[in-house]
């Protein structure tokens, strides 16, 4: 994999595509390549876009990409779609709506299946974003269906998160239930030419007036369950970013300028008062916790003979020990125990 690093840095699209595959498949040697690429990351602005199916995410991403291209910026799109839990296969259809972008060498589109591996998706996405970043793209748009925790996790790798709604998808309680509003830096009501747009916008505004729980960085901390002594109450009102609500009709290109401006505003907000530095530090901390957790679990089970695991399962099943005691046994397990 390491041999792909130099071609990637000099703009070889094939090398880029193959590195992305290596990231997805956790191919051997990818760690070394990623380590080599890491110093070249931190340049691209990562924008996460999420929303329920049918809200028009792909169309909106296409319009955003076109607008950035007009400004002379290069764009990478990472379109994440669910893997079927039954067959492990996936149909990745986002390119259908991105037809307008083909033929432009300043755009690179990659479809990615979630592959359902626990925690693996967040990691693969973060690494894929890094590969695209190191390839030098100015804007990295990560699109995902906002339907579960793993999707929300993906979005947390972004600097600016756009949550997309559409009229007629349910009342405001749905929006609250979905739990993705809390992660929004910018809210979009797409399909704004449809009936019900005013009530959708009003519902979102009301939600925001009820109090956006806290500023973004504190939310990240909160959801990442990293205990910090920082008060959740912001000291000054100007410390809080209130997500703007933007109306768009993606298929007509309407409202795209406003969306672009809202994303830029958020970028400027983060640029002030070290906010970006703090956000990035929190991203890194979350990622390290995730990775250490994965590594420890892997390490523990790698050293554990299946017979030992079967034995503990039997003990729990026969009510001899409870699950938490079993966990303590597992954590205390040393390979020598088997030899005895």
């Amino acid at each position, binding site marked *: 994999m390491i041999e792909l690093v130099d071609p990637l840095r000099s703009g070889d*699209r*094939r090398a880029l*595509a*193959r590195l*992305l*595959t290596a990231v*997805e*498949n956790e191919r051997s040697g990818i760690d070394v390549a990623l380590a080599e690429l890491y110093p070249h990351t931190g340049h691209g602005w990562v924008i996460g876009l999420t929303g329920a199916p049918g809200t028009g995410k792909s169309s909106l991403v296409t319009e955003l990409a076109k607008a950035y291209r007009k400004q002379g910026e290069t764009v990478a799109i990472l379109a994440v779609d669910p*893997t*079927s839990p039954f*067959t*492990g*296969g*996936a*149909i*990745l*259809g986002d*390119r*259908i709506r991105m*037809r307008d972008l*083909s*033929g432009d060498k300043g755009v*690179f*589109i*990659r*479809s990615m*299946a979630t*592959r359902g591996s626990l925690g693996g998706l967040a990691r693969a996405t973060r690494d894929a974003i890094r590969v695209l970043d190191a390839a030098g793209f100015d804007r990295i748009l990560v699109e995902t269906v906002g339907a579960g925790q793993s999707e929300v996790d993906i979005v947390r790798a972004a600097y600016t998160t756009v949550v997309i709604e559409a009229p007629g998808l349910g009342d405001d309680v749905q929006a609250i239930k979905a739990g993705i509003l809390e992660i929004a830096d910018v809210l979009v009501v797409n399909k704004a030419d449809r009936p019900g747009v005013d009530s959708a916008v009003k519902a979102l505004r009301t939600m925001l007036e009820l109090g956006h729980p806290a500023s973004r960085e504190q939310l990240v901390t909160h959801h990442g369950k990293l205990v910090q002594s920082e008060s959740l109450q912001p000291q000054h009102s100007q410390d809080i970013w209130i997500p703007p609500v933007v109306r768009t009709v993606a298929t007509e290109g309407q409202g795209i300028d406003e969306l672009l401006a809202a994303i830029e505003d958020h970028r400027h907000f983060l640029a002030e008062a070290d906010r970006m530095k703090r956000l990035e530090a929190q991203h890194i901390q979350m990622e390290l916790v995730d990775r250490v957790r994965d590594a420890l679990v892997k390490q523990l089970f790698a050293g554990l003979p299946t017979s030992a695991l079967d034995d503990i399962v039997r003990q729990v099943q026969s009510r001899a020990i409870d699950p938490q005691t079993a966990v303590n046994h597992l954590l205390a397990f040393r390979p020598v125990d088997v030899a005895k």
Partner: protein
Amino acid sequence: MTASGIRVLIAKPGLDGHDRGAKVIARALRDAGMEVIYTGLRQTPEMISEAALQEDVDIVGLSILSGAHMALVPRIRQEMDANGLNEVSIIVGGIIPDDDIQSLQEMGVAAVFGPGTSTEEIVTRINELMGARQA
């Protein structure tokens, strides 16, 4: 290798606007555990080749009902070769006269599937192609 991780691009080159067949195949391949990138209608050879490159697919499946296969397929193969995708197999489905099948195979098409082909047959052939590449 198992089906998981096999990436297939399904594209409709040319002008015919009937993609039910392509969608049926896309679904069958997904059910066989493959990742299918579906690009939609009216794709040019350049678009197909570029999508195959970006998505780093193992197989490109073309659905052609318009009768223009003898013109389109060689251009797609050329574009793909120019992109360094020599190892990526092309399979073709659609309405292809028997006389053309051999010519297509000579152009480097790995398999041609006419009407009535079972989806199992296509899955099997793709697995064979992948197996041959692994060896």
